[in-house]
């Protein structure tokens, strides 16, 4: 046994953990459920909720598992009668002043009080006194977050988040005893740019998300793992979508994506995401290009194939890719453009934005590193004019970029007049799409399988959360169909997974990778792995 490992016994099970592990972590490793409210692996230990009490052989009092270091030879009981009784007692205390308004509480369905009550509580109620009334219900404490003090169990997770993660310290616990209440400090608002995380870590319904509250019940939602496309960090997220869209069309104004939540990845975003990413999902259901301008996909692709054949050898086709596309779509489209003898450009789909020291990067392209690994040079938006305007372009094929916005409408209008045919392949309406001769609707990231490569060179998977809207298709699908019409070889893919296998064979950066190997946490690309 390594000297850095210790062995202990939890509920009769032998566990080996590294030194420095706490009992709660060891118990969870052993598969022994120890409930908790105030404990959060990303925050300091508060030890105040007292529900994680466990019995340790040789120690007379029950101990909190969250603050007790596991030691070699320790014998821990997490499920015996004494411990179960203590948990029930803590739940009884927590419910002394907690309002029983589950039917109207936005947290119903994912409230830890409800869950633990069902698992460990279920006692005959004995509290027959008046509850303490907190000052106000549902107050605005920031742009994104509402606070309902009377539902708060004072676990202090949100306070610690603001103190320890963002360092902005907006929240505090005021007063004493059962009059204690959480609030923002006078003159402050929760506006760190990461405020949504306090909603995620609130175990009860005290802090709720203005964007989400009362839109739907959580049991109508499905959850799919994905990666945030908001910047090059590639924060791991869960996409919460409506389970039965047609049946509940009236909910959330018909939106299919209801909210995004962070997904834990210690190597990327730990437990957090920024507000910009969290609330940047509306484009999935708003302003979508869900139909072809005219005709069917077959007719459109046939028409486009004929145009490409006409001008293929004149050197006047330009294909414009985006570092917002997945590795698979970029690989497929790049290959198609090469087959069509097109000049391929890849341009940043937005100007650099704001970054910070926590998660946000200034590069708002989720897949710049992937594009570069595929051999594309990503040019800045201000270089687009030079790249396009001095060319004689017969056919411009734009994937996902609103070049009218990038170039300015006047310049775009001039450019548009000079070219004979313009194709817009993308997911959302914009000036460029409106001016295009042909519009090929694309899926958005939540309708795709695929992968992004983040700023650190970590390749991470996206899973399909929604069916493509209307006639939208993944870009690789369009590329493969068109390649067949152009009689190009090597496009015989049936799925994104097959493209990725192909990509991993051809591109050294992705060498040895597969969807299975990427798993939920992703893998560093070869160059990054060597340089790190």
């Amino acid at each position, binding site marked *: 046994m390594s000297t850095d490992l210790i062995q202990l016994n939890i509920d009769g099970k032998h566990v080996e953990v590294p030194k420095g592990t706490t009992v709660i972590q060891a118990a969870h490793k052993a598969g022994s459920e120890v409930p908790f409210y105030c404990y959060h692996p990303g925050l300091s*230990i*508060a*030890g*105040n*909720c*007292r*529900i994680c*009490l466990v019995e340790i052989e040789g120690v007379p*009092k*029950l101990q909190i598992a969250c*603050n007790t270091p596991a030691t070699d030879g320790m014998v821990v009981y997490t499920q015996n009668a004494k411990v179960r009784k*203590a948990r029930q*007692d*803590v739940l*009884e*205390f*927590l419910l*002394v*002043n907690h309002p029983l308004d589950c039917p109207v509480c936005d947290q119903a369905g994912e409230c830890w009080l409800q869950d633990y009550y069902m698992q460990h509580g279920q006692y005959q109620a*004995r*509290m027959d*006194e*008046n509850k*303490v009334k907190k000052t106000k219900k549902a107050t605005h404490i920031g742009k994104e977050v509402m606070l309902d003090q009377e539902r708060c*169990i*004072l676990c202090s997770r949100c306070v610690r988040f603001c103190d320890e993660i963002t360092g902005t310290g907006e929240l*505090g*616990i005021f*007063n*004493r*005893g*059962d*009059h*204690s209440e959480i609030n923002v400090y006078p003159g402050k608002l929760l506006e760190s740019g990461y405020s949504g995380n306090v909603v995620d870590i609130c175990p009860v319904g005290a802090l709720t998300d203005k964007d989400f509250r009362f839109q739907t019940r959580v049991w109508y939602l499905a959850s799919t793992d994905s990666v945030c496309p908001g910047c090059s960090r590639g924060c791991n997220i869960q996409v919460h979508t409506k389970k039965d869209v047609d049946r509940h069309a009236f909910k959330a104004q018909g939106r299919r994506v209801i909210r995004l939540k962070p997904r834990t990845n210690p190597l990327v975003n730990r437990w957090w995401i920024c507000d910009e990413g969290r609330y940047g999902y509306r484009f999935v259901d708003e302003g979508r290009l869900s139909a072809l301008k005219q005709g069917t996909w077959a007719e459109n692709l046939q028409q486009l194939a004929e145009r490409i054949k006409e001008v293929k050898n004149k050197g006047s086709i330009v294909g414009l890719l985006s570092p917002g596309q997945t590795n698979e779509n970029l690989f497929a489209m790049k290959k198609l453009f090469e087959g069509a003898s097109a000049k391929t450009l890849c341009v940043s789909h937005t100007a650099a934005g704001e970054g910070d020291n926590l998660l946000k990067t200034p590069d708002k392209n989720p897949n710049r590193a992937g594009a570069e690994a595929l051999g594309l040079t990503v040019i800045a938006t201000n270089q687009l004019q030079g790249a396009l305007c001095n060319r004689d372009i017969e056919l411009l094929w734009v994937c996902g970029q609103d070049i009218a916005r990038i170039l300015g409408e006047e310049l775009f209008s001039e450019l548009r007049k000079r070219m004979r045919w313009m194709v817009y392949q993308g997911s959302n309406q914009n000036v460029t799409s409106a001016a295009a001769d042909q519009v090929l609707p694309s899926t958005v990231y939540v309708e795709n399988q695929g992968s992004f490569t983040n700023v650190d060179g970590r390749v991470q998977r996206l899973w399909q959360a929604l069916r493509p809207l209307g006639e939208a298709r993944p870009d690789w699908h369009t590329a493969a169909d068109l390649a067949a019409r152009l009689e190009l070889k090597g496009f015989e893919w049936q799925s994104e997974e097959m493209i990725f296998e192909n990509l991993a064979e051809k591109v050294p950066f992705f060498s040895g990778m597969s969807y299975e190997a990427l798993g939920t946490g992703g893998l560093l690309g070869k160059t990054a792995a060597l340089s790190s």
Partner: protein
Amino acid sequence: MPKPLNHLSARFHVNGGHTLKVYKECHGYEGAQKAMAMQPDAVIEEVKASNLRGLGGAGFPTGVKWSFVPKTTSVPKYLVINADEGEPGTFKDKYILERDPHALIEGMIIAAFAIQAHKAYIYIRGEYVQPMKRVRAAVEEAYANGLIGEKTLGQDFKLDIVVHPGAGAYICGEETALLSSLEGGKGQPKLKPPFPAIKGLFDCPTVVNNVETIACLPLIFRNGAKWFADLGSEKNGGTHLFCLSGHVERPGVYELPMGTPLRELIYEHGGGVRGGRDLKAVIPGGISAKILNADEIDVNLDYDQIRAAGTMLGSGGVIVMDETTDMVRALWVASRFFHHESCGQCSPCREGTGWIHRVIDRMARGMGRIGDLDLLLDVSSNMEGRTICVFADAAAWPVQSYIEKFRAEFEEHIRSGRSIIASESKGCLTPEHAVIPAQAGIHLND
């Protein structure tokens, strides 16, 4: 009648006893000079040999506590004096702070030298206005006379002392809550481990000692550890300032050897129960301690013997209750105090103290139910031993001991539906004026 001793309390009744001049006339700062002529480790050993224990209530051996402080560390070490005397029934430190502050400063020099701390704080109860003035003046006097500062007592040892007023929270008497408050945070206890000796003030090694404990040090070094140890009982060295209050003829502060019988304190020094009435109950160590009934007072007042009797010496606040005492009212007062003072950090304490007080309040208003007593016992038991600090235990013990020892009275109160609260309108005592005078400051032996 054995007379109270006059070591710690020697200058309590001396005009100008709080001044450096008088203190020096009484061999002041000689003990510190002796200590500073020794090696720090030898100072700690001397304190261990004296059997001095923490007189703030915990009773932990002082020298042992100091020995936990790392000898070598890259960060500063601190000495913090707990002068946040908030335990109802306890008012002894007030005397030292107000009437003999140089004894505290001299003791601080010894303690700081022993642990090699160069900065010390006196965290003093905000309500102690006069004691604070006296302590501040004494600290200034000590600086002005070169007793502390860059060259403490002329030696190559720097010691700065800061007087810091608290803001009126009982919990700030708990050592880690005191440190949180001193750091500028909310006065809430910290998780242990780590203990303050390893990670205390500003995350640096810190010793927190009570005023009286530190004030004993000059005596120990002036007279020797053996002399001090011999004053008290086994493993409980020295004397203790017992605070006697409630229904006694002569309430006040009495300096008596550790191990003095409780009966002797009440009947001989205190002059017995007021008006010749019968004794009903005694709280031996401040409001938190489990109550003793009249048949249980043949116990000696030191940490070990009184623990064996099922209660605790605490801070030495002995509260006497005569036969007229309404135990429901007494518990109402205690429960209201603990409800008001719970810091609110841990769920069982935050919610339990309020729940308990609301049940007792309903009972006191004549709306009690027989099941309430078992409910109170169960709720208090569920709080006990399950929180970060011992406040929840302190809140639980009165409930348990009052009901256990006076259950018939509680049941009678519930059955009769008698309301204590309603009696306010008839000019009777309100519960606020119940048997416990708290820090009323009635000291007839002044």
